[in-house]
């Protein structure tokens, strides 16, 4: 008898275990849903964890207002299909009512503004745990995250003073007003995610598959041509076959030249690529420690 699980099934079992711990240890957890493959994976794993019951979490989308159209369509379909409750935190509203100030100029992005809106929504909804689809292989500050990551009453991360996390015992105890960020898919790599989504036949947004799109190049990154991004005079728009490797705010999510229009080709591409998926994220390129700095303030 062979009782060995292959690595994807082992990762699956680990993530399901974490999701169930969240349901058991917290009063009001929320699942941060961005519309990207990682949050789609998280929802899929949550369905597995609580089957045949509905997933016991509300979904929270922090909407920058600068989305790829496809993302919102996909999100609304998914929510309807699984019968979940969705809360949308709007960055546009926060700008309109003066809670946050919009950046100006060529590289303006609403990415940083998401933090204030997120913290606001967590407080409004009295959520005591927010699950995110961040993976340790994405970025060097994320490589340091615990599964259960404690946040103080200001939502701040203190990377120099994280709680020890031993074996699979997760300490979710906190004072009133504090909360936890929880990362159930911490140990998955980009390739694991794609292989798993393929064998599980999970439906995905079309943005991940190669398609024709008008794009232009800035600082070595291809950006989608949209009225939201102010172009410089010398930035020339061309039409190309591209796909997204991550999906986020349209102003800072680079697209990649690719002809991978099915899962088989995507897996092939991901397993041979020489660039990390966040290599196209201009929000990470602002400084050497921009992810760490944002996380300390409460970003996911």
């Amino acid at each position: 008898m062979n009782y060995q699980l292959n690595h994807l099934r082992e990762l699956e079992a680990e993530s399901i275990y974490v999701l169930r711990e969240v349901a058991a240890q917290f009063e009001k957890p929320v699942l941060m849903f961005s519309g990207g493959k990682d949050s789609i994976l998280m929802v899929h794993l949550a369905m597995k964890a609580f089957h045949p019951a509905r997933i016991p979490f509300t979904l929270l989308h922090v909407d920058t207002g600068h989305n790829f159209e496809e993302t919102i369509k996909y999100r609304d379909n998914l929510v309807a299909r699984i019968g979940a409750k969705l809360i949308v935190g709007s960055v546009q509203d926060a700008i309109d009512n003066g809670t946050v100030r919009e950046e100006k100029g060529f590289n303006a992005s609403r990415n940083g503004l998401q933090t204030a809106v997120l913290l606001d929504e967590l407080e409004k909804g009295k959520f005591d745990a927010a699950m995110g689809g961040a993976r340790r292989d994405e970025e060097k500050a994320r490589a340091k995250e615990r599964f259960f990551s404690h946040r103080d009453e200001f939502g701040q991360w203190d990377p120099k003073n994280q709680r020890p996390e031993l074996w699979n015992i997760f300490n979710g105890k906190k004072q009133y007003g504090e909360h936890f960020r929880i990362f159930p898919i911490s140990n998955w790599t980009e390739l694991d995610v794609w292989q798993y989504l393929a064998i599980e036949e999970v439906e995905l947004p079309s943005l991940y598959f190669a398609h024709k799109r008008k794009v232009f190049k800035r600082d070595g990154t291809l950006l989608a041509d949209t009225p939201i991004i102010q172009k410089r005079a010398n930035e020339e728009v061309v039409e190309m076959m591209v796909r997204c490797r991550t999906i986020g705010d349209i102003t800072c999510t680079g697209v990649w030249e690719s002809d991978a229009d099915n899962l088989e080709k995507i897996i092939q591409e991901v397993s041979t690529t020489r660039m990390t998926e966040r290599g196209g994220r201009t929000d990470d390129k602002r400084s050497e420690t921009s992810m760490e700095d944002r996380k300390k303030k409460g970003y996911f």
Partner: protein
Amino acid sequence: MKGQAVSDAKNQLMGDIEQSTELLRFTTAGSVDDGKSTLIGRLLYDSKSIFEDQYEAIKATSERRGEEGVNLALLTDGLKAEREQGITIDVAYRYFATPKRKFIIADTPGHIEYTRNMVTGASTANVALILIDARNGIVEQTRRHAFISSLLQIPHLVVCINKMDLVDYSEEAYNAIKEEFSQFSSKLDVKDVHFIPISALMGDNVVERSENTPWYDGTTLMYYLENVHIGSDHNFIDCRFPVQHVIRPYKDEFHDYRGYAGRIAGGVFKKGDAVMILPSGFTTKIAKIETFDGELEEAHPPMSVTMLLEDDLDLSRGGMIVRENNVPDIGQDVDAMICWFSDKPLQPRGKYTIMHTSQDARCIVKEIRYKLDINSLHRNTEDTNIGMNDIGRVVLRTTKPLFMDTYRRNRITGSFVLIDEGTNNTVAAGMII
């Protein structure tokens, strides 16, 4: 994109993916500056597991800081404070794969102040790489980390005698350290110790065999990692299923459904098995083992499943499903080794929260048997003040019974953490004896 595209991909991939790949988790250990992070960087670089943009980023940082070459330790030392001080503060996890295996690396700090983070990284490892600077030999932190690795029952230790380039690749230097470590480790509970002379900085014997150590006829580190037999860390004998969560769908068609969700901690459970549930001690049978993908005939560690029982019994989070003829130790006295993480010492008669499998209880420190002297491994029964980073043996009394095995027998039902009731911080890791 359901449909044809996926089915094709699936047929092609399923085979490869499902039969592949073993997962090996390893950790680094050893004193500060002995080269742990540099070694991980070297391993990733020489196995071509570094992405171009990552490499460009650390190259630019190295240049800006005026370093001679590209500092490969920057691959794991990603925090601002770590880069400023040139040390590791918290565990960094890195991932890579070769055609043979998939690896999860935990690069841990050597600094004594951050021992808690070393234990965090090591608690889930199959293999520990213990680095020693060939110039300095074994120091107290080497002993502490080797001892912690043995306490955690990491089955394989690889002692990497590093910075061989700084001792002219001297066989004598290597042998002297090997000899000294062997003497120390013979007193530890470790099954398998392996030695490799390396230079993390230059790459000798990391991925490529070195010409500088013709006297060494062993394997490279990479070869070892790809081939070491990890068998199985799991216990497939004693059936243990801690209940994590009870699933009660509020849908009409599942009116009477009550599923016990959890992860198998030991043994092989089969549909129809006669089982006992704890704490009540009632017996019943497993009606179904369910997953989202359908029913299973049997389930084993580390699977996450849902169990349905034939009878309606009182069972909830913290309870456990076991076999009638093989029950864990049920009791309120916990005899254990602990590793202390807080700057506030362990309080004799102090009260803490204990988390053990899916149970929470309160406990009182009934007795501190001894503190361990990390250098001599002497059991000190006079000085039993357990402070930060100390290791000692204690007896705890809990407010309700726990369902325990020894840590040796089962890493899941044999481990616990202690939590300070004031700060909610995790202050100790415990291993049941």
